[in-house]
């Protein structure tokens, strides 16, 4: 993964309540979310968050309801002020920004896509898509070309003069995405952007985002509580629970090495064959000698390898990337990877 860090969150704490400072000290001393609620009537939103978000990649923040995902993403453009901590964007601590600099950040560097679309109902689709240039004071005539371009890119040809309520939910969210793209910002924040859509449309939108990413390489921060979605989109996966980061890293790595029962619960229901890639389970070796039944690509899913092997667990495959051998894949090893770790090892305590 590229070492280019776009957004860097350091020791971020957020406590909701009338008097957060004393509560902050208690949290730093080790008080949990439930204790803080019971004893101090303060809500622990975020607890010592440290996350680096790589430039041009998709960082997915995942967690159950109330785990602090929305709170975290709203700190990145300071819709919520932290109780303590730092947020660095392109090497600048945005918490030191004054109001004007902050507006500049929101207008040019970051755009946001919302779960409930949050379009302006009294403006046309075109005007909604052009919200960012309009905020800068550009006239509709000036931004029309740019906005139309992005509306067409997300699949809304010729709908510019409609009003949002005349569109379906999926189309409205396309407007939301076009609005974010028209701002030409490097960073796109997406708070459960696809959660309000029905499953088929949702898959469409995920594919649209993947296509756009291949083309534009924005730094995307995506929030979801759906692991399938997370694994589909993420280059970097951050898992939150009760306001703290339980585990973060490469999604495949987390899937194979969950470090917490909370995450094991999450990953137990997943179709691992479809999600895991060959590269995550192969043995890395360049001199792949010996008898092999064929070649597979490092980025193939295990599902495709299984169908290739016709279920024969005795086979071995040579793994290649760009035609070069990079490892070996044993079918037994592959099958073992399909079973969650704790189920194959010691018995699980939780049902």
């Amino acid at each position, binding site marked *: 993964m590229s070492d280019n860090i776009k957004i860097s969150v350091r020791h971020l704490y957020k406590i909701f309540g009338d008097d957060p400072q004393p509560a902050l000290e208690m949290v730093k001393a080790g008080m949990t979310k439930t204790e803080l609620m019971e004893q101090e009537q303060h809500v622990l939103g975020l607890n010592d968050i440290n996350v680096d978000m790589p430039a041009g990649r998709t960082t997915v923040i995942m967690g159950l309801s109330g785990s602090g995902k929305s709170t975290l993403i709203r700190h990145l453009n300071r819709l919520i002020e932290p109780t303590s901590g730092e947020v660095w964007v392109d090497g600048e601590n945005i918490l030191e920004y004054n109001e004007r600099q902050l507006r500049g950040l929101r207008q040019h560097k*970051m755009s*946001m896509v*919302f779960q409930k679309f*949050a379009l*302006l*109902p*009294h403006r046309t689709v075109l005007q909604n898509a052009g919200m*960012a240039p309009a905020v800068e004071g550009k006239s509709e005539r000036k931004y029309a070309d740019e906005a139309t371009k992005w509306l067409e890119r997300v699949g809304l040809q010729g709908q510019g003069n409609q009003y949002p*309520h005349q569109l379906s939910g999926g189309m409205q969210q396309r407007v939301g995405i076009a609005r974010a793209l028209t701002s030409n910002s490097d960073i796109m924040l997406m708070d459960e952007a696809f959660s309000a859509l029905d499953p088929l449309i949702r898959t469409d939108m995920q594919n649209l985002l993947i296509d756009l990413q291949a083309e534009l390489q924005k730094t995307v921060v995506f929030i979801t509580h759906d692991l399938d979605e997370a694994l589909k989109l993420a280059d970097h996966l951050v898992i939150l629970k009760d306001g703290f980061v339980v585990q973060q890293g490469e999604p495949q790595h987390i899937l194979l090495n969950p470090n917490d029962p909370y995450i094991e619960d999450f990953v137990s229901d997943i179709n691992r064959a479809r999600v895991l890639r060959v590269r995550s389970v192969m043995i890395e070796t360049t001199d792949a000698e010996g008898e092999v039944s064929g070649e597979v690509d490092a980025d193939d899913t295990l599902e495709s390898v299984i169908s290739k092997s016709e279920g024969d667990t005795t086979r071995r495959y040579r793994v290649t990337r760009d035609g070069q051998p990079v490892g070996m894949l044993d079918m037994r090893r592959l099958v073992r990877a399909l079973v969650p770790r704790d189920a194959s090892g010691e018995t699980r305590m939780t049902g």
Partner: protein
Amino acid sequence: MATYDFVFEALGLKEACGADDGGGLSSMADLMGDATGEDQVVSLWDTPFPSLDALHEACPAIPQSREVTRGLEQGFLNIKDSLKVVVDPLTQPLSWALNEALWIMQATPWWIMIPLLMLIVYLVGRSAKLVVLVAVCFGFLAFIDYYEYTMQTLAIIFVCAFICVLFGVPIGIAMSRSDRVQRGMIPVLDMLQTLPPFVYLIPLIFLFSVTEPKLYGIAIILYAMVPVIRLTDLGIRLVDQDVIEAADAFGMTKRQKLYGVQIPLALPNIMAGVNQTIMMSLAMVVIASLVSAPGLGVLVLRGIRSLELGVGLLSGLGIVLLAIILDRVTKAALARINAAQK
């Protein structure tokens, strides 16, 4: 002698009250007592409430209740002049506006005025039915020779409703932006709304001369402004928080947010407030004819004073027709806004 003598005796305050009890025979009870010449032996059943008057009987140093009303009156008269210095110039434009509007509405010939009103109604409501309704109503009122009065009433309503909106909307916006302002304003609005309309007129009559139009102008405005303030405040507070958040996330300034998002999205509620404000101006303009507001209200008053049943009923009908027109037209405008915003 009086019921509560014992209180003052017990407290040893008889001296302080002034020894002489037989001074002014001022309360009714005193007079009665005197007339019958009996000493009052009051049974427990008839014990009077220890009111000012009752206590005054026992102790003349305590003022009678009518002193209170007289004191209030005196107080008001004392500040009246200084109040007038401030309020008079401030409200003078209202008199001018009312006079001008009355003059224009009456000076314009009917064959311009009625089509003009129909045109306005069409522009606001975009409904041919409504235009016909307006034509019929005004035609009828003109036919029975109430045209003049109708125009006077309309002129007053236009001016007052306009001023209500002019001040009411900004006040409502200020309330929506600050909980403190809202907490401060709500009791004032409650008071303005619950005070019987006649009560407004009393201090105003003392303050201004009855010949000045602003006398009734102020009464109408105070009474009718409440709904537009309340609904502006409510409308802005009810604007979808997600949309506000989006506006923030794209870097809008407070001003852009107010004019570009909050007011447009609150417009249905604001228009509902304007509708109520206009209806309340109409109600008040009738009452205000007591203090020389011209228009249909004068006819109603004539109907009452000189028992001209026909005049009273017809002018009442005229007011109903006006109310229907104003209500329908503002509702049509409201419906158009709603349609544009889903």
